[in-house]
């Protein structure tokens, strides 16, 4: 079976769910080899084994001290020495950048924000705000594919990976952008927005920053992440980093609950591939209702707290 490289996405050793999704996908297409860069490997190796990494390539910790380039250099080294059939990375901001640099280094085609990969490395995209499904493939070099988080269901497939240390010599250009400080913002107990199975988002209808506690309470009752529409982040009611939409985060959870969000294209582009969509909005004509599996027309200040209470009762 052909070897498929999976770059592990993690924060200080805490492996992101998307990595487990990529390992599952890689084992479907060939044999998954995980590629590790950065601190915390010892605490993470069991997780990689549990989800089917057949091999793990471990790069020097120093590679994580500079923006993106060293990670691409390590992958390029492995593409050269191991001739993998493809390289998979998470379609996060950084993952896509690593993919881009690797494509230049190896003269390969790159496909980003992919939602599925079939035999022959035919990649599926959901484009233009989810309105069109397209398929694409790489014609030159090694396919480099960035996969959108939450697109593949991760499956445990215990393996006993062989470990290999990989050395790569960094050029001065690779070390041009030095990370002098890494600031991890407190996100509390809530899951990451792009990785969450359930997302509850608030929009213009929420009316104020204080009122966002209604959204947070609903989210917490479901163990969900909190998101916000652009109208809400523009108004300063919720931090910009929680914006779901065309110029913010793209999410694809099992369940998306839109509260007080009209559903402009700006927002739909960021959530349209969610599996189940629920909306609460006072305007029966709001475009969000065209997408929903279940919608309630009414006052969110009545409906959302009642929903939170009902969920509490059912626990």
């Amino acid at each position: 079976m052909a070897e498929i490289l999976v770059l592990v996405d993690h924060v200080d050793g805490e492996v992101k769910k998307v990595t487990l999704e990529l390992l599952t996908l890689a084992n479907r297409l060939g044999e998954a080899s995980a590629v590790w860069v950065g601190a915390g490997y010892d605490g993470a190796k069991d997780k990689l084994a549990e989800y089917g990494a057949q091999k793990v390539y471990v790069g020097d910790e120093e590679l994580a001290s500079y923006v993106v380039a060293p990670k691409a250099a390590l992958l390029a080294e492995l593409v050269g020495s191991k001739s993998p059939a493809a390289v998979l990375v998470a379609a996060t901001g950084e993952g896509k950048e690593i993919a881009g640099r690797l494509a230049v280094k190896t003269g390969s085609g790159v496909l980003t924000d992919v939602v599925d990969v079939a035999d022959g490395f035919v990649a599926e995209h959901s484009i233009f705000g989810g309105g069109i499904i397209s398929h694409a493939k790489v014609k030159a070099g090694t396919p480099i594919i960035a996969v959108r988080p939450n697109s593949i269901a991760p499956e445990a497939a215990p393996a006993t990976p062989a470990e290999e240390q990989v050395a790569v010599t960094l050029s001065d250009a690779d070390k041009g952008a030095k990370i002098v400080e890494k600031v991890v913002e407190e996100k509390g107990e809530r899951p990451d927005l792009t990785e969450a199975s359930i997302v509850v988002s608030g929009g213009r209808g929420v009316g104020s920053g204080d009122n966002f506690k209604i959204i947070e309470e609903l989210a917490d009752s479901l163990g969900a992440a909190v998101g916000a529409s652009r109208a809400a982040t523009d108004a300063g009611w919720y931090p910009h980093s929680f914006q779901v939409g065309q110029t913010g985060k793209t999410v694809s959870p099992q369940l998306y609950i839109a509260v007080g969000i009209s559903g402009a294209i700006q927002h739909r582009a960021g959530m349209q591939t969610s599996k189940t969509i629920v909306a609460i909005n006072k305007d029966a004509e709001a475009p969000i209702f065209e997408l929903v599996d279940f919608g309630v027309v009414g006052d969110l200040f009545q409906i959302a707290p009642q929903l939170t209470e009902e969920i509490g009762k059912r626990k």
Partner: protein
Amino acid sequence: MNIVVLVKQVPDTESPRKLKSDDNTLDRAAADGVINELDEYAIEEALLIKEAHGGEVTVLTMGPDKAAESIRKALAMGADKAVHLKDDALAGSDSLQTSYAIQQALGTTGFDLVVLGAESTDARTGVLAAMLAERLGVPQLSLANKVEIDGTSIKVQRQTDYGHDKVEATLPAVVSVVEKINEPRYPSFKGIMAAKKKPVETLDIAAAGIDAAQVGLANAATEVVDFAEAPPRAQGQIVTDEGDGGAKVAEFLASKKFV
């Protein structure tokens, strides 16, 4: 400081966006063209840097004739001059080829700083800044939500999934910006009038030193195999709240085993 800001004209997200059935490329005629939203933040950041440190802002655009509208808007916002890379041979280029073409065009302008939006609203690949930095061999200061320059030293705050990284480098460099780094200005009447007199240089691939065999749809490293409209979502159930709306949603969620 020689600041080059990359501007892409994209189909307006408010108008219907399509692919062409003959070659699976973007149908640029089907929708109104506008400046890619994040590029407006890039233009603003370039202007702010010029205002603080002096220099000149050059707009660089690759695209068909129609892209000239976006160049005019960028000049009206305050950029000093523009280069329009325009050649039929470039049509259908993918990200790898586009980064090569822009690298070549930057060879004609020179630069201390290249500024661009982190992602376009049409292709949404988010790879161009990284590819350019790789090709140019200069620091990649991407996903920036704050930029500080002091002489030739540059510091940016890089937006990450967990918060941000503080990054330092030395010019020349490539900077890509995210939303909210600034508040893009509207062109003033005076700016619009002045834009008409600002120089716009047109480059074809020969003038930019671009090898025709390395660009264009036929030579792309990727290809769109097919596309179709997404199946419409089945019409869901919509109810009007009669005091029990929250309970009804809870019932629905329970039926789907979410609670």
